[in-house]
């Protein structure tokens, strides 16, 4: 009888927590879908001047109004999704590939290799990220490959730190020792023993780092150092239309809204994952 009384309360509690997570996952899924199909469903050409009004209001055929040149805001956002998400995802992926691999290697090989790698990345991490991005972009000019490479390099030390810390924990467990005593090589240890056991936290870390990458990239675009015209990501859209800010033009509100929903969505997912997935992220 007591169990029967208890059941509904616990069921509600279980449902309530992940609800925020489900909403977050929905938002993220929506934007990822838009990144893939956005350019094909965009109602207008991104460059076409279709409205005589600048910062036009929303109306039939122009659901989100027009921008500072009279272009369709909806189409520009849909096409920009690909740049915002694509560049950030590519950069994060590269950062994790480099930082993660080296982090696991450092943890498994211990001693000298670990020392050298850890010291090296500790030093790299002391250079502020925006600053190094600015220097590199100023030097090499802004293009999509340069942006990806720069952001990737910036987030590599952080990825290294977290992957190493997680791997060191797993590496201390007896089953890794057993494999080592069996005579397994480093590659096997990383692939079979370490990686499957840190996958959860590591995916979480990917999410956090992805958010930072989006923020950094949109800030760069906002400063005019990111994606260059005629292409535009969400950050550039905000920059272009900043003059419409005072009137609350949709052209500046909607890209901002897009950035905020995506990053908040990812955070919602991460915050609501079960405990074993968690990792401590840093900016």
């Amino acid at each position: 009888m007591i169990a029967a009384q208890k059941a509904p309360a616990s069921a509600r509690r279980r449902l309530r927590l992940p609800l925020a997570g489900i909403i977050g996952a929905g938002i993220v899924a929506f934007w990822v879908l838009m990144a893939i199909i956005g350019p094909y469903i965009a109602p207008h050409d991104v460059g076409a001047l279709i409205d005589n009004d600048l910062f036009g209001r929303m109306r039939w055929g122009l659901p989100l109004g027009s921008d500072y040149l009279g272009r369709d805001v909806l189409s520009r956002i849909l096409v920009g999704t690909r740049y915002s998400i694509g560049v950030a995802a590519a950069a994060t992926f590269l950062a994790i590939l480099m930082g993660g691999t080296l982090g696991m290697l450092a943890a498994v090989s211990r001693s000298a290799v670990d020392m050298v790698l850890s010291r090296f990345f500790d030093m790299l991490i002391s250079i502020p990220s925006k600053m190094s991005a600015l220097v590199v972009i100023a030097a090499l000019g802004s293009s999509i490959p340069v942006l990806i490479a720069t952001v990737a390099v910036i987030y590599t030390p952080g990825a290294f730190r977290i992957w190493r810390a997680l791997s060191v924990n797993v590496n201390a467990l007896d089953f890794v020792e057993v494999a080592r005593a069996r005579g397994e090589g480093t590659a096997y240890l990383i692939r079979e023993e370490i990686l499957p056991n840190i996958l959860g936290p590591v995916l979480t870390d990917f999410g956090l780092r992805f958010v930072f990458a989006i923020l950094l990239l949109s800030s760069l675009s906002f400063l005019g150092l990111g994606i260059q015209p005629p292409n535009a990501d969400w950050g550039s859209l905000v920059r272009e239309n900043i003059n419409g800010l005072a009137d609350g033009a949709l052209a500046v509100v909607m890209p901002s809204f897009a950035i905020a929903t995506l990053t908040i969505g990812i955070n919602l997912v991460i915050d609501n994952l079960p405990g074993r997935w968690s990792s401590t992220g840093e900016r």
Partner: protein
Amino acid sequence: MAMLTLGFVSMAVFAGTEILPGDVAEAVLGQNATPEAVAGLRHALHLDYPAHIRYFLWLIGIFSGDAGRSLANNLPVTELIASRLPNSLMLASVTAVVSVPIALTLGISSAIWRGSFFDRAASFLTMSVVAMPEFLIATLAVIIFAVNLRWFPALSYAAGMVSINQFFNQFALPVFTLSCVLIALMMRMTRAAVIDTLRSPYIEMAVLKGARPIRLVLTHALPNAIGPIANAVALSLSYLLGGTVVVEIVFGYPGLARLLVDAVSNRDMPVVQACVMIVCSAYLFLVILADIAGVLSNPRLRYR
């Protein structure tokens, strides 16, 4: 260790500016410069020496307070920086004074009442702030406080400060924006650090000694969380020197970061190098302070 790191950073900075394509002398003198003039400038700038020698010349210069001359306007770099650094330091210290106490109080209180409505609300709010690019916060602040409410000027720079009132007006919006970001960051890290220590068995022991939640957090968890919290604060504050680019640009504030952005777009390498060195030193200094705080708060490290 910190000196070693700084040395490494200096090398990285130097190498980074070194691999930039293009010849500085040609860039400075423009396209129709005579070869003699270019060669002359190259010699004046020591560009005809091998890289490692130039590195040491530059390093000695930096330490003796002579960071060379700006390539853009031929002013001494030290002078340029001297005109901007106090502005940056002022902005940073005002923001730090405002945000650190608020962030710590909020972080600790939401750790005490974790799971409560207050904690959930604070969590969501700070998450949203962390998830938003700071240019959005800055522009929102402008819309609300400067354009709609007309409380403060949208641009903050005015030469020479006159009254307290004006001083307050100039700083209000940049400080507000930076504080939002910093408070959110620090509060989340503080909360996480305190909650992490709340999981220790000695906390359960304290509960079974009859300690109430406030006592648990303040006298049992907090002393053990000082290390991580100090690190979080150091990390966040270091952001105040290098990460304020966006805020400085939105509000037209003449700080170090804007000098850096301008220098970067002009390829004014001596200025870039000097700025980056200053920011990195400040970061390392903060990290060392945090480490000292961590050691002092941990008897295991204090009494070996």
